[in-house]
């Protein structure tokens, strides 16, 4: 690649042609402030509208200041990133943004984690000289996400996530000039829209305009209620990210400390969603094999490929966008919901308490789980299988509120029996993990042989769409993997058009899978954080004695004592679900 020479703040350097001033400056440690610009480099996700102008720099020979994020270096360019003129211009930009921004920082959900607040802090803004009219939109609350559009600074990162990456298209810039914000069609409630609750808009919003619905208070009152037995389950991706909230390096595994903290917070039983992930593999794997074997026996009716169904945002996506394919995904419920169903039947019976006196809380990297646990299919007589789903971020805040010194906690173990899991369950937390877990079990059940190597490197990685063929004793099983709903859409279109060659497809809505979920500690555009979390997940798997779901002794016991066989009637009733057509209907009046 052609190299060009540029000089930034008197330092001369060479960069490949096409490099922006922002990126060039970064290589020599100059951190030009940005607001609208956003990138997750390794995942090829970028937002570059060049709109906010906080990143302006002076380029010799140009009359106007140039936005560093959207201006490419040219040969022998001379750039000043901190001249008086630049600093004044940036301050004016910031003051103008702040003049139309609410001043409720103290009680804003993003406080302490807000890029706009950081910017005001960095610039030492002490007063706002402009006092204009402030825009007033209503606050929209959905089961998972709150939109407080008055806090929108029109960076359009969420729009990029929702449209370009997820291809959902719920959010769009509307109106013009002063009134311009990002909103839904007709400013309808998110709940009425095609939103999947993937939370990727929340994950990138620099301000408090998009945040999760906080359920911590409800959890605290359940814990304070002596009549309630409160059970907690933790999703696999949480343990690979929670530590970041306490200053630990990305990729630190904090499983033991997390368990200790939950015990300290007063939960009666600390269980693991991973147990239910093993259960999911038993059900989903059996379903996969049954469809596959019918197909091999020449059954033309059987639907293939089978699609995984663990990700609730993905489920919402196909219910809205591909309802005609709704009998293709596995009917297996997500691990969160399997856990809730087993806890409120099997385990409640064991404890001798009613389901009403049991409260199931889940700690999730995900905002769609909040919506999922409120779905009517997952309730018995109005009582939900999972009462509250709180995000990794909410748990971190809860731990801080309770003045627990997280980093000083000892490592503790999950409780038995719903806290025991295999390595296969842990990898549910990353893209590629669910299908690898399924392959480990399906292979052994199908062939009756024991795998020599349980690691399937061909299924791992961060490419948005991956494919691999696994040799199942002579039968080539073709597997597709997509993460990010835009990538899922591509595979789905092939399925719809009869062009798909896969036998099984794993889909996760969030880029990276659950490790990049909308409820995780904010990565602020640093994709190396996602990479580190993924590594941590595989590391936890490698360290487990049991690596395959069907070898989890408590899973075997659960089938012996309670469920019978995978796909039994009882299993069907408790562990499977059905899907709905949620596409907007156009009818004749």
């Amino acid at each position, binding site marked *: 690649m052609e190299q060009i020479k540029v000089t930034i703040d008197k330092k001369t350097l060479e960069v490949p042609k096409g490099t922006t001033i922002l990126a060039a400056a970064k290589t020599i440690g100059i951190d030009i402030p940005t607001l609208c610009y956003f990138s997750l480099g390794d995942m090829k996700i970028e937002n570059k509208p060049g709109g906010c102008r906080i990143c302006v720099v002076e380029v010799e020979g140009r009359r106007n200041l140039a936005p560093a994020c959207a201006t490419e270096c040219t040969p022998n360019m001379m750039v000043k990133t901190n001249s008086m003129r630049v600093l004044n211009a940036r301050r004016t930009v910031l003051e103008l943004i702040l003049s139309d921004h609410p001043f409720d920082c103290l009680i804003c959900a993003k406080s302490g984690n807000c890029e706009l607040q950081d910017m005001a802090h960095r610039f030492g803004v002490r007063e706002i000289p402009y006092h204009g009219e402030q825009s007033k939109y209503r606050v929209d609350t959905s089961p998972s996400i709150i939109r407080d559009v008055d806090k929108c600074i029109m960076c359009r990162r969420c729009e990029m996530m929702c449209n370009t990456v997820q291809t959902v298209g719920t959010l769009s810039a*509307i109106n013009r000039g002063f009134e311009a914000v990002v909103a839904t069609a007709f400013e309808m409630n998110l709940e009425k829209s095609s939103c999947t609750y993937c939370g990727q808009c929340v994950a990138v919003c620099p301000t408090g305009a998009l945040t999760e619905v906080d359920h911590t208070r409800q959890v605290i009152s359940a814990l304070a209620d002596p009549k309630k037995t409160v059970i907690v389950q933790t999703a696999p991706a949480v343990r690979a990210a929670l530590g970041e909230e306490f200053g630990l390096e990305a990729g630190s595994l904090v499983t033991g400390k997390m368990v200790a903290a939950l015990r300290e917070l007063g939960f009666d039983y600390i269980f693991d969603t991973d147990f239910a992930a093993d259960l999911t593999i038993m059900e989903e794997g059996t379903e996969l094999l049954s469809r596959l074997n019918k197909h091999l026996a020449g059954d033309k009716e059987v639907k293939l490929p089978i699609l995984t169904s663990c990700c609730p945002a993905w489920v919402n996506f196909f219910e809205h966008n591909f309802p005609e394919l709704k009998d293709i995904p596995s009917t297996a419920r997500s691990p969160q919901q399997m856990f809730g169903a087993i806890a409120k039947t099997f385990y409640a019976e064991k404890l001798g308490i009613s389901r009403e006196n049991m409260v199931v809380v889940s700690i999730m990297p995900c905002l769609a789980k909040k919506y999922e646990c409120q779905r009517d299919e997952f309730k018995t007589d109005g009582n939900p299988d999972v009462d509250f789903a709180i995000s990794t971020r909410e748990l971190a805040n809860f731990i801080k509120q309770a003045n627990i010194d997280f980093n000083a906690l000892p490592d503790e173990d999950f409780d038995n029996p719903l806290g025991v899991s295999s390595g296969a369950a842990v990898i549910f937390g990353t893209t590629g993990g669910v299908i690898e877990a399924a392959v480990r079990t399906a292979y052994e059940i199908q062939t009756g042989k024991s795998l020599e190597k349980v690691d399937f490197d061909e299924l791992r990685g961060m490419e948005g769409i991956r494919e691999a063929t696994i040799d199942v004793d002579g039968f080539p099983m073709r597997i597709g993997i997509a993460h990010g709903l835009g990538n899922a859409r591509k595979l789905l279109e092939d399925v719809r058009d009869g062009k798909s060659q896969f036998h099984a497809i794993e889909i996760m809505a969030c880029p990276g899978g659950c490790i990049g979920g909308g409820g995780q500690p904010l990565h602020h555009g640093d994709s190396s954080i996602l990479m580190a979390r993924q590594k941590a997940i595989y590391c936890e798997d490698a360290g487990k004695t049991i690596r395959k779901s069907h070898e989890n002794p408590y899973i075997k016991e659960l089938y012996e004592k309670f469920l019978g066989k995978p796909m039994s009637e009882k299993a069907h009733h408790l562990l499977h679900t059905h899907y709905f057509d*949620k596409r907007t209907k156009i009818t004749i009046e």
Partner: protein
Amino acid sequence: MAEIKLPENKLNQLKEICKSFDNKAGELINVLHKAQELFGYLPAEVQEVVAAELNTPVAHVFGVVSFYSFFTMTPRGRFPISICLGTACYVRGAEKVSDEFKRLLNLKLGETSADGKFSLTGLRCVGACGLAPVVLVGAKVYGRIAPENVKDIIKEYEEL
């Protein structure tokens, strides 16, 4: 699940419009122009159908409709009053004329009266600069209007 209802003939005509532009999302603005000609305005239902036909998110359609002042989501009145706010009309006092209409009808630009009789919009140059300031009521042109004339114009239609 959202449900959208439209009369059959209108629905078919709308689909025809989309088809005449090959159902291309890139033709959205042209489709919306024609759709607004057909319906007089662009209610949510119409935008939903256009979105479905052009295979583009309805939020995007709404984004475009809300961006351009030409598009409207409120039905026009039986007597749509349009005031030219182009340069020639403007310098000859169109704003005062517009203010007088707003005052007498108690409407803002872009609004329609509760009884559906009058609606008020501002227009860019209508090409009758010689007659500035110009007001249109439906297709009828009123030229060289001063604020004092506004009362009489409204009166003409009040009895109808």
